[in-house]
């Protein structure tokens, strides 16, 4: 290896099998494996098919948004009394999905969980793309979307300010800042890996592109020292942020006095549901990604097992939220709360309610079994069921509460239209498309953190 002088003392370490990382990986091999997925791996047809398929869906989404802007929100199924339909349910659902990425990258970092290392990068990318999708919907559901910026405080000629006592204004701040901070956290973590890609790039164009975004990172000891502290503090800031974001979103509902909205359990119940659906989406993305890129040594059954356990725990928190809502409705003796609850069980939207219970409460009980948590096929199917169940929950909260409030004369129904479905499916395509671009352009796993894990696993073995 070395040509002259000393040996550099000691052989470079090789990873031992620690469950979350398999044996036999060194600094060089793990770097090359992950970097080459981006730099040298040829484009294959399954990726191409998925890329163009979802790209088509993204174009349809853009077309549908264009049509929406021309025709107005009348193309949706919303009307009085159900003026909040899919668009609002979709915001809540997408933001919730994003929360798992922040939870993995920030909370598990503070808790020193080693299984975080190989999944945090793409989980954070998932967060960014999910929040980007979520951020579209509040604008899309506005009657006059070109005035959306009126919610921001800026020195306007009308001499107006946003209403600081409105949760919708809090929402604007929460979502915008969540997106910004998630991006900063993700980008800071990427800088050392961008430097690796710069130094291993095979063409000048790639070296230039990665080099610009690597900002000239050279791995100097003092830079690493600042990097570690800054990254840890960003995690510390992102942790309360992630809890606050879905809490604030839940206040959009809870502060209103509509039966079915007006509940103090909402903030924790929304956060638990967010983590539940977010971990489901992490599994939905992890399982195909691991297979496509052959990452079995980095993303092991232990990761799937842990994610399954988190889903089981958050699923129970959510079930507690459901039970609490029902209990409080009857315990309060409030006739509107009681009739809203009975309407959910037996009314027009009852099939959605019972399907939600099936998806979110009953099916996840399979996760008690270790064999299920380690069975890729069952786990993947289960993650899709939970995604669907959580989406139904968001729709149910938004729609069923509005369709029967206090006055029978103002009861009504919401039936989604073609455009409701098109825009929902369009955002799913755009989300998948962004993710497909991400896995080909940036390292899906944090390379520098994996090197550290190699060192730690070798030290633990010796």
């Amino acid at each position, binding site marked *: *290896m070395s040509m002259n002088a000393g040996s*550099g003392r000691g052989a470079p370490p090789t990873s031992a099998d620690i469950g979350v990382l398999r044996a036999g990986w060194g600094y060089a091999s793990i770097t090359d494996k992950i970097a080459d997925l981006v730099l040298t791996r040829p484009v294959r047809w399954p990726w191409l098919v998925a890329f163009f398929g979802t790209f088509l869906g993204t174009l349809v989404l853009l077309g549908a948004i264009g049509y929406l802007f021309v025709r107005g929100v009348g193309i949706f199924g919303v009307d009085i009394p159900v003026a909040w339909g899919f668009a609002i349910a979709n915001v809540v659902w997408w933001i919730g999905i994003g929360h798992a990425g922040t939870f993995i990258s920030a909370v598990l970092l503070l808790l020193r969980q080693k299984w975080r290392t190989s999944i945090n990068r793409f989980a954070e990318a998932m967060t960014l793309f999910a929040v980007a999708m979520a951020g579209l919907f509040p604008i899309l559901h506005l009657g006059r979307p070109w005035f959306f910026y009126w919610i921001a405080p800026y020195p306007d000629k009308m001499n107006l300010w946003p209403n600081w006592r409105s949760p919708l204004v809090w929402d604007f701040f929460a979502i915008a800042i969540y997106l910004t901070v998630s991006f900063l956290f993700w980008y800071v973590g990427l800088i050392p890996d961008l430097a690796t890609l710069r130094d291993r790039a095979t063409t000048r164009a790639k070296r230039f592109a990665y080099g610009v975004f690597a*900002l000239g990172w050279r791995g100097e*000891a003092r830079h690493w020292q600042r990097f570690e*502290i800054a990254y840890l*503090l960003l995690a510390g800031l*992102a942790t309360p942020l992630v809890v606050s974001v879905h809490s604030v979103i839940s206040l959009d509902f809870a502060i209103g006095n509509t039966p079915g909205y007006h509940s103090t359990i909402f903030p924790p119940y929304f956060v638990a549901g967010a983590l539940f659906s977010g971990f489901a989406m992490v599994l939905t993305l992890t399982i195909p990604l691991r297979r496509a890129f052959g990452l079995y040594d980095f993303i092991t059954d232990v990761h799937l097992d842990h994610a399954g356990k988190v889903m089981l725990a958050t699923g129970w928190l959510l079930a507690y939220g459901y039970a609490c809502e029902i209990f409080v409705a009857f315990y309060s003796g409030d006739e509107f709360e009681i009739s809203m609850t009975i309407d959910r069980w037996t009314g027009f939207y009852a099939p959605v309610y019972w399907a939600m219970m099936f998806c979110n409460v009953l099916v996840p009980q399979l996760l008690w079994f270790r064999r299920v948590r380690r069975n890729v096929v069952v786990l993947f199917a289960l993650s899709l069921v939970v995604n669907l169940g959580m989406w139904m929950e968001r729709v149910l909260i938004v729609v069923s509460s509005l369709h029967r409030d206090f006055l029978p004369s103002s009861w009504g129904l919401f039936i989604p239209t073609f455009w409701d479905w098109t825009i929902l499916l369009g955002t799913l395509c755009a989300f998948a498309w962004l993710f497909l671009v991400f896995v080909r352009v940036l390292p899906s796993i944090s390379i520098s953190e994996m090197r550290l894990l190699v060192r730690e696993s070798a030290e633990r073995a010796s």
Partner: protein
Amino acid sequence: MSRHAGMQQDAKPRAPLWGWMAEFGTADALLDAARKAHDAGYRRAEAYSPFHVEGLAEALGSRRTHVPAIVFLGGLAGAVGGFFMQWYAAVVDYPINVGGRPLNSWPMFVPVTFELAVLGGALAAVLALLIGSGLPRITHPVFRAKDFDLATRNRFFLCLRSDDPAFEREGAARFLDSLEPMRRIEVPA
């Protein structure tokens, strides 16, 4: 760029030097070498590694960073500024009497204040990292060293800079060789 100019100068015995670099195969070897360099009086020595090596910056004589203090100030600025903005809007610039409720309804100002505190802290963390480290800086003399690209892959480098008061061309080279690196590399000025 100057990469080619540097190569031509290599032929001359006394080409200007930015520093000497020693390459190691493990983090522990680099940590040990960094301690010895500091003990030998090199105060401007630099170390490069492909991941964060605990204690390496301290071994080179780095004291604690200011990042936490800056993040705290950033968060504080976000919180104070955020609360002030809402208070000013609701009490001074645009007071509206809503059913006799107090204008300074501070509990309702908490969410935005909190979110802006997080934003201030996060921006401060990123700026403290980048400005403190002198980044972005796309070009740097160490990138001219041969095979330095391995610093972001699997190798560990100790660099003695020629502007270090303790640096003396032959002496520094002898010192690095005594650390038994895999090899010693010239960093052209």
